């Protein structure tokens, strides 16, 4: 965190000055470790074994078993007591597989690039339910068309055992699942000494409970594994067991890598989501009509029962007056996905000649994962648009890449037409950005961009304007969506300094939402959304940030007064509903009283929920309100169900739906590993994604040609692919050369000296770097043998003030099956002097 998020680390250091204990788990001793009280060195990729060990340690702890806080939270606020389908079989039963594993059969013949090596049939992971569905009466509010649809989704109540003794209850399944994750096993898998592991476990435990909370923070490298989402889920499982979710100072905190990368998932640039975390309509699912889509994706209970309101308001934002109840609000015009169109398979598609052109904004794929393969893809494009601050490697892959420099490919043989658009810098643009804690803050411009440099907003808006013009006369049905798309964000005052720049406030209004009949009447909260077309709102989760034309809440800058305990509710605006801690009903006990004075956050004041934060619960639902199995939405949930986004209102220790690779986190080895999996016969995730090609080969487990574990990372001094830092002489001088960090033990074994040259190779590629020999790295003892861990920052390329080999020439296109994130954080390599 200190390495990649030094500004956010300010708050960690403030906490430390107030006595907080800092634990750091990492393969390398980094600048974060330098500030930590406890350091747990782990082999890269072994995190689930470590977290699983902590879970087992907690489950066996005497204080945890006897403290009413932990037990009340566990039984009431998590799904610990819920019974799971009798057909469910665990990885403990099947030696590393869950029930339902089968060959992958999905996908469209036109898009054979989804990468799955296997697939689970997931029915057996579901809950046990009582008898049949309750059969909702037709009473209550039936004024809108979609109420009946939502009620029709209702399921019979889940079966529970509040004593947690039933062997099929989640708690017992979790306990059995992690039973072999003993401290000795943790040490064998991760390389972390038993006493260090126990110290971490005891520190976390002693810092959790009524009076204290523990927060886990991770930089996004934690997700970059073939089981990345499972790693985060494993941490969430631990935090739920410790009662550290929904309470101040708790949580699992993602430290995201770019400014507003949170915003770019909320208003997504992801292929498989539309605004506000709604699933993108897909040809692979039962999404033929709007009703089919809602049947497949909405929930009968919990906050997602309002999905028809979110979706219809979103479609109104897309197609305006053209979207009517009679035409499914234009749902048929909306683009649909046909498979995995994320980064990794798109470059495989490119390399296979399936992609005509690419618009690349602020990204540098020429130095990205398996960079040689990605450059092969770029060479097959007909056209490429690069919009960036500098001529990045992606802009010059055709005349200056290593394969061009060494003569193996001639520029004349590349037919791609490359366009470069110079980009405005951050201080030259205006708009909101959303930080990692979901906080929207308004960003004012400090200067006009020079010459032809334009903002991303300008570029995207003008591209849309031109495409609409291009398709205006088309008679093709497929172009109707473009023709109907509402696209008018021109500023009211034409005298703006940059001609063609849209008004960012108009975009914020579109996102916030308004009454369809009178756009100047903004919506004040998502509760005003309707599913009849009377409201327009691009992203329901942002509804409320701009409640009136003269009230842009993202631009607020009033902190709480000094000495006052609060949530700084007048500083910016956090989605949803300006709430700073999600699921904060869990900060109070079953009766609605704070668990302790020290950790007071939200409470029941006798008539309503009140507190320092915006309560994340129906305002007037009393803590002792029983669940109503005949109701819909949050009305169906009891007064002690804090996790209102979940259909059952509780935090999930066991994940019955939503993940494709297992309901519980399990230790698998990375796709490349020097050892066999010490826990299961199954070496790697049976459903990971892998794109097999000659230029994307993997080393077999324990391949003696590639004996070392390698991880890649960022340095404080540079920024991601270097596109923003390697052109600054001041920053470049701070870390001028590519290096490989290694222990003196490994260096000595190969005759490598500090600052001497090293050749690093994997089945995908071979590069050179200077050695940085340091005891901050150490050999691990894994599964009985010594395993060396090395690490390389990946900032360099052939352009800029400082240059160096492309580290991602070493990495592989291999991904997790849920979100297709790559695994550049743990793979194997060889090192040699030279």
């Amino acid at each position: 965190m200190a390495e990649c998020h030094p500004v956010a680390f300010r708050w960690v250091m403030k906490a430390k000055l107030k006595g907080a204990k800092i634990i750091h788990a990492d393969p390398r001793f980094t600048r974060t470790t330098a500030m930590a009280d406890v350091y747990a060195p782990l082999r890269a990729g072994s995190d689930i074994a470590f977290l699983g060990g902590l879970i087992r340690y907690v489950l066996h702890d005497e204080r945890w078993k006897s403290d009413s806080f932990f037990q009340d939270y566990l039984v009431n606020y998590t799904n610990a007591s819920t019974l799971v389908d009798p057909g469910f079989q665990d990885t403990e039963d099947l030696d590393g597989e869950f029930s339902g594993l089968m060959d992958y059969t999905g996908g469209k013949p036109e898009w054979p690039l989804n990468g799955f090596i296997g697939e689970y049939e997931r029915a057996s992971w579901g809950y046990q339910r009582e008898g049949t569905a309750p059969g909702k009466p037709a009473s209550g509010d039936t004024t809108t068309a979609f109420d009946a649809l939502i009620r029709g989704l209702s399921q019979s109540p889940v079966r529970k055992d509040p004593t947690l003794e039933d062997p099929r209850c989640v708690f017992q399944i979790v306990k059995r699942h992690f039973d072999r994750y003993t401290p000795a096993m943790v040490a064998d898998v991760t390389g972390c000494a038993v006493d260090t592991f126990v110290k971490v476990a005891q520190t976390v435990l002693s810092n959790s409970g009524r009076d204290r909370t523990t927060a886990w923070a991770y930089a996004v490298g934690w997700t970059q594994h073939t089981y990345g989402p499972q790693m985060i889920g494993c941490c969430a499982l631990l935090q739920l067991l410790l009662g550290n979710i929904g309470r101040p100072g708790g949580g699992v905190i993602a430290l995201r890598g770019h400014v507003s990368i949170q915003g770019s998932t909320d208003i997504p640039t992801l292929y498989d989501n539309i605004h506000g975390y709604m699933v993108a309509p897909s040809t692979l699912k039962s999404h033929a009509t709007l009703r089919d889509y809602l049947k497949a994706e909405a929930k009968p209970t919990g906050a997602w029962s309002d999905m028809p309101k979110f979706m219809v308001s979103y479609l109104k934002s897309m197609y305006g007056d053209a979207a009517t109840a009679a035409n499914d609000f234009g749902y048929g015009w909306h683009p649909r996905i046909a498979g995995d169109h994320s980064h990794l398979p798109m470059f495989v598609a490119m390399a296979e000649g399936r992609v005509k052109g690419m618009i690349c904004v602020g990204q540098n794929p020429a130095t990205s994962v398996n960079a040689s393969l990605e450059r092969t893809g770029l060479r097959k494009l007909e056209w490429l648009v690069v919009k960036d601050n500098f001529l990045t490697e992606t802009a010059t892959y055709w005349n200056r890449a290593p394969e061009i420099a060494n003569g193996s490919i001639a520029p004349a043989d590349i037919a791609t037409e490359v366009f470069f658009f110079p980009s405005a810098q951050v201080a030259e643009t205006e708009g909101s950005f959303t930080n990692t804690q979901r906080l929207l803050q308004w960003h004012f411009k400090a200067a006009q961009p020079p010459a032809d440099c334009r903002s991303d907003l300008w570029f995207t808006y003008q591209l849309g304007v031109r495409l609409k013009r291009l398709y205006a006369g088309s008679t093709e049905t497929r172009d109707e969506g473009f023709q109907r798309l509402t696209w008018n964000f021109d500023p009211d005052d034409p005298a703006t300094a940059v001609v063609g720049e849209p008004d960012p406030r108009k975009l914020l209004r579109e996102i916030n939402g308004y009454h369809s009949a009178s756009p100047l009447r903004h919506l004040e909260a998502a509760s005003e959304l309707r599913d009849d077309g009377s409201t327009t709102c691009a992203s329901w989760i942002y509804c409320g940030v701009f409640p009136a034309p003269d009230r842009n809440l993202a631009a607020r800058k009033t902190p709480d007064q000094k000495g006052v305990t609060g949530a700084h509710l007048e500083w910016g605006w956090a989605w949803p509903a300006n709430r700073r801690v999600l699921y904060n009903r869990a900060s109070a006990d079953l009766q609605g009283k704070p668990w302790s004075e020290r950790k007071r956050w939200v409470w029941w004041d006798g008539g309503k929920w009140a507190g320092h934060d915006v309560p994340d619960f129906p305002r007037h639902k009393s803590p002792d309100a029983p669940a109503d199995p005949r109701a819909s939405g949050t009305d169906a949930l009891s007064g002690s169900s804090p996790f209102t986004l979940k259909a059952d209102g509780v935090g999930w220790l066991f994940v019955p739906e939503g993940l494709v690779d297992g309901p519980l986190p399990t230790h698998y080895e990375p796709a490349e590993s020097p050892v066999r999996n010490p826990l299961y016969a199954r070496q790697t995730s049976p459903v990971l994604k892998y794109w097999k090609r000659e230029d994307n080969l993997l080393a077999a487990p324990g391949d003696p040609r590639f004996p070392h574990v390698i991880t890649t990372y960022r340095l404080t001094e540079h920024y991601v692919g270097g596109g923003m830092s390697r052109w600054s002489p001041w920053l470049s001088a701070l870390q001028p050369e590519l290096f490989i960090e290694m222990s003196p033990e490994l260096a000595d074994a190969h005759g490598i000296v500090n600052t001497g040259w090293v050749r690093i190779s994997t089945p995908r590629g071979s590069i050179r770097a200077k050695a940085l020999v340091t005891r901050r790295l150490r050999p691990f003892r894994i599964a009985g043998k010594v395993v060396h861990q090395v690490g390389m920052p990946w900032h360099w390329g052939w352009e800029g003030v400082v240059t160096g080999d492309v580290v991602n020439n070493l990495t592989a296109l291999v991904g997790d099956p849920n979100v297709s994130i790559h695994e550049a954080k743990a793979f194997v390599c060889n090192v040699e002097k030279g």
Partner: protein
Amino acid sequence: MAEPMGFFTDTSVCIGCKACETACKAWNQLPAKEGGHPPMSGDSYDNTVRLSGEDWRHVKFIEQFSEDRSAGRWLMMSDVCKHCVNAPCLEVCPTGAIIRTEFDTVVIQTDACNGCRLCITACPFGVIDVNPVSKTAEKCTLCYDRLQVGMQPACAQACPTASIQFGPIAQLKATATARLSQLQAQGEKQASLYGADDKMLGGLNSFYLLLDEPGVYGLPVDPKMPTRNLFWGSVSSVAAAVVLGVVGLFGFRERRAVDESDADA
């Protein structure tokens, strides 16, 4: 004179991000080292290597690990001009280019510097060097231009963890003493303040909290004023003169004696 102002650098919370180095370069428009591509030093994450006429802030990285890694820490410290109360550089400057400001800080006026380099050798901390662009001696000004308009120095403003704190010296000393007690109570027995009292060159207006001996950070244990040497230097010069004189005298006497003996002979 305004209240004495300066830096308290708490190295125990320095995360080595080098924001201070970059902020200093940006505000003072200092050139990048070797055009931005010096060779990698191989000395941990330090590629700035030392303070100089173009590097007025320098973050040091000290790796301390036992062979088996059972003990290990990575010390970081942002080094800068100490703005000594009795400043050796100021004392030796023949042109009066080095001045003490109304904030009790030490500033080199580049337009009055003749490049004689006396201050470079006089500084016991190795702070000053010639800026390759201006060809004059340069060092941290404690952002004199910013102080004059009520702003804090660029490095202190950029420091994310408040390792570099700027303020009135009296206040900083109170902060430092409290922080030292806190650290010692937490078991950091080696923690100490460096230059916070007036024993070292009358006091350093940029003083430090260190977690190890000064020598570990490359700081002199007992920095001296050049004039401290002046007294003994003068004494020895006088003594040498006396000795030479006496030798000469005796020499003459001897000669006279020889002459006399010759005469006797």
